[in-house]
């Protein structure tokens, strides 16, 4: 059996003539990364031993060998990041492996049109991630004090007999919680739309639970943006301004990037 081809990303061939290709070690830590040109698209690849990196072996490693997954995930990420600094890269998913050069070539050629439009969308732009966190207790206090519906309910309860008050207060707590969630979404959405002024595209992702983030505060927003390079600085300054203005009310902002454009180059 011949060697397999691990594909990191695809770049426009025209960009490869502008600078020499850097030397990096491949997925197995031994063989070098190199390029394969198929017309207007060039693939960034390395070779892998077909037995060692069979589908079963890789699946087993991903499921059972955290140390391996950690090492290889960082390798994939760092490699794609390094190339993203030099070229317009359409990044591939982790462990995209072809049986041989021909199968890769056929796939690239079949998708040539889609790749060309991906390249023109991504050229000169960067992907950035924003996560917003909120200290619920601080905001809850605020919601509880400043919401007219809650205020009115509270006044009504104070006039009830003691026994009824207990149950009505429980109901009121529930109302405060749902108002709190709405308030969090409302504020986050407003920020998202204000940030869209700086960006070409913005996608909302799933929030992570506290188990995942390991933070005391709840994640209230998780989004990715495709931003023209020249607008990245004002975009980040805007986030910094939110952070400054909203810190005391329990809000936190975490921007990260530039990421390879994973969220803006997928086509199906």
């Amino acid at each position: 059996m011949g060697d397999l081809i691990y594909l990191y990303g695809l770049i426009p061939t025209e960009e490869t003539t502008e600078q020499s290709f850097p030397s990096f070690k491949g997925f197995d830590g031994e063989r070098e990364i190199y390029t394969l040109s198929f017309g207007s698209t060039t693939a960034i690849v390395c070779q892998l031993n077909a037995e060692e990196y069979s589908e079963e072996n890789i699946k087993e490693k991903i499921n059972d060998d955290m140390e391996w997954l950690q090492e290889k995930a960082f390798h994939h990420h760092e490699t794609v990041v390094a190339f993203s600094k030099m070229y317009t890269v359409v990044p591939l998913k982790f462990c995209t492996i072809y049986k041989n050069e021909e199968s890769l070539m056929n796939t690239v050629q079949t998708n040539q049109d889609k790749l060309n439009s991906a390249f023109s969308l991504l050229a000169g732009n960067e992907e950035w991630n924003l996560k917003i966190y909120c200290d619920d207790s601080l905001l809850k206090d605020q919601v509880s004090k400043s919401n007219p519906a809650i205020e009115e309910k509270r006044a009504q309860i104070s006039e009830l007999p003691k026994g009824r008050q207990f149950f009505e207060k429980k109901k009121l707590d529930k109302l405060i919680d749902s108002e709190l969630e709405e308030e969090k979404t409302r504020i986050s959405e407003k920020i998202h739309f204000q940030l869209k002024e700086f960006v070409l595209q913005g996608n909302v992702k799933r929030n992570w639970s506290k188990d995942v983030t390991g933070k005391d505060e709840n994640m209230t927003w998780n989004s990715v943006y495709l931003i023209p390079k020249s607008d990245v600085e004002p975009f980040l300054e805007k986030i910094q301004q939110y952070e400054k203005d909203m810190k005391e009310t329990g809000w936190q902002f975490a921007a990260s990037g530039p990421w390879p454009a994973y969220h803006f180059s997928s086509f199906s």
Partner: protein
Amino acid sequence: MSTVRETIENKDIGLIDILDVILDKGVALKADLVISIAGVDLVYLDLRVLIASVESLVQAKEGNRTINSADFDQQREALIDATGQPNKWQD
């Protein structure tokens, strides 16, 4: 003075952030002969399990997760106390 960009760019990105992106996103160019690791979606969905294994990996590296028999006995006694069960393990 450094820009906001430079400050953020130099921050370390965590494993979870990377896995969240590279396992779930990016182009999936499928052909007859491609090996695509579809199973990784399972890993993604069960991110919590994954984190637990990362944590145990970190702890194992720190080398302070060995339980000795004295600790074990102590925990057993505490449990017996708490549950009010008769001690079957009287030595």
